[in-house]
């Protein structure tokens, strides 16, 4: 009899990811109180994207799942990036609006 094959990471990995997510939350709050100019947004969103990626890959098992789930999940977020990216390419290049 072979050992059953499991589909996700070990408890240690889950706890490790949880710790990284907590550190990311702390870094987000800390960064908000430092004046970085426009980079405040870049830092906060960069941390948020990193946290979300960790949740998708480990908590949601995409890293351990079949390629098809990889394509479907990445495709969803890629289209969202196109939606927001192209809209910003418009609004940020209009000059004074009103």
């Amino acid at each position: 009899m072979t050992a059953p094959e499991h589909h996700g990471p070990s408890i240690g990995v889950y706890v490790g990811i949880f710790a990284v997510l907590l550190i990311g939350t702390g870094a987000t709050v800390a960064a908000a109180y430092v004046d970085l100019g426009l980079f405040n947004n870049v830092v906060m969103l960069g941390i948020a994207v990193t946290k979300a990626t960790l949740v998708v890959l480990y908590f949601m098992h995409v890293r351990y799942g079949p390629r098809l789930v990889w394509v479907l999940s990445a495709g969803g977020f890629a289209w969202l990036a196109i939606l927001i990216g192209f809209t910003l390419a418009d609004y940020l290049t209009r000059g004074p609006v009103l």
Partner: protein
Amino acid sequence: MPSVSDAHPLAHQFDEVEQQRRAVTLGMWAFLVNEVMFFGGLFLTYTIYRVLYPGPFHDGSHHLDPTLGTVNTVVLIASSLTMALAVWSAERGKRRPLVGFLLATLALGMVFVGIKAVEYHEKWVDHLVPGPYFVWHGPDGSHVQLFYSLYFAMTGFHALHMLIGFGLLTWLIVDALRGRFGPTYWAPVETVGLYWHFVDIVWIFLFPLLYLIGRH
């Protein structure tokens, strides 16, 4: 037709349990991509109006409580951990830890919504709920009201997803107590887990975008 509650938890259209499990996961992801687009529309609306009216968004954000927002972020991340551990337990047929982790997830979710309710109440008392009773003693109140409309729409739909999650978790807890989940059948725990983590991701973006604008 065999149903999942029978001794062989395999629907007739599948050849094996693993194939069925993968199909369920793929279907859930198709739904979650829909959800990405649903919240994506709200995030896009937020982005456009914040680009157009940075000042009022800055002022509006300063009337949110970053401490409560931070605590809620930690609570929700902790609930994602307990949910992940519930899926871990279900797959290995550990019934008692499964029930415990599901109850912990539900409890943490309720703490989150409870704190959210306290925040909503404060906004109500401070006349910051958009509508005829909205009062703003500063410049450009109409665009501050726009910020609060987005605040309530985005956190409201997020909270609605949490409430639906409470129902799903309750259903899982009942079935877990009946011993329905084990190494050959834990798809409901897995899919509700995916849903719960997705709702967590939405909050990961809502928190800095709503609570932490221009705090320095």
